[in-house]
């Protein structure tokens, strides 16, 4: 049986949205898929050696809030300084208590399983990103690089 292939485009750089690409990539690798993730725009934050991902309730009415805060806490107050750090800390605590892996752990499982991580060169140039802050082994490429692999995949996701 020919090896199945999965390609993912990761575009988001928040703590919550860091999960889908790394969960799916690591699981697919465990199932025997060859996997590539193409990181573009804010998704590039997921490649930093030292992750500093946060979560925000702003602009996200679907986010479950602790202590039913969404019922009585005015949305505007979630924009106060320190709120994002607080929500991030609470989310991380919740995840740990439920046995959900950290993003760091899932990411290193992906690396162990030879998931190829490709950074969008255009975004790196656009935002003058410091590539020395990125993981070792990250490759750089553009849209054509992505399609070379994506064109042969069984599953291709945009996250």
């Amino acid at each position: 049986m020919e090896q199945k292939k999965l390609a993912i485009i990761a575009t988001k750089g928040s703590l919550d949205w860091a999960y889908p690409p790394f969960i799916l990539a690591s699981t697919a690798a465990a199932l025997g898929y060859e996997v590539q993730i193409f990181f573009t725009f804010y998704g590039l934050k997921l490649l930093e050696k030292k992750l500093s991902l946060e979560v925000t309730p702003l602009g996200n009415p679907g986010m479950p809030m602790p202590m039913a805060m969404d019922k009585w806490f005015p949305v505007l107050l979630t924009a106060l300084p320190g709120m994002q750090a607080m929500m991030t800390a609470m989310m991380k605590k919740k995840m740990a208590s439920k046995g959900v892996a950290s993003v760091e752990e899932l990411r290193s499982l992906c690396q162990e399983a030879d998931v190829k991580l490709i950074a969008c060169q255009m975004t790196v140039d656009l935002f003058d990103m410091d590539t020395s802050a990125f993981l070792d082994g990250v490759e750089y490429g553009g849209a054509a690089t992505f399609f070379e692999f994506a064109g042969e995949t069984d599953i291709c996701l945009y996250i």
Partner: protein
Amino acid sequence: MANFDQELDASGLNCPLPILRAKKTLAGMGAGQVLHIIATDPGSVKDFEAFSKQTGNTLLESREEGGKFHFLIKKA
């Protein structure tokens, strides 16, 4: 309980960790050997079925006992 060669306690771990740990443990085992996995994630019941189907390993047993899920997987 049937015999097994190795045991993996994935209690308290959530998706996809039980699968990933199982895959890693199986990688270090020989063909025909049996891995016993203990998990508490209710999603792992369907996930280990799907894992076995897709990897060619055989799910010999899947049962719940005392609030925990037990799986026996034979490495292909």
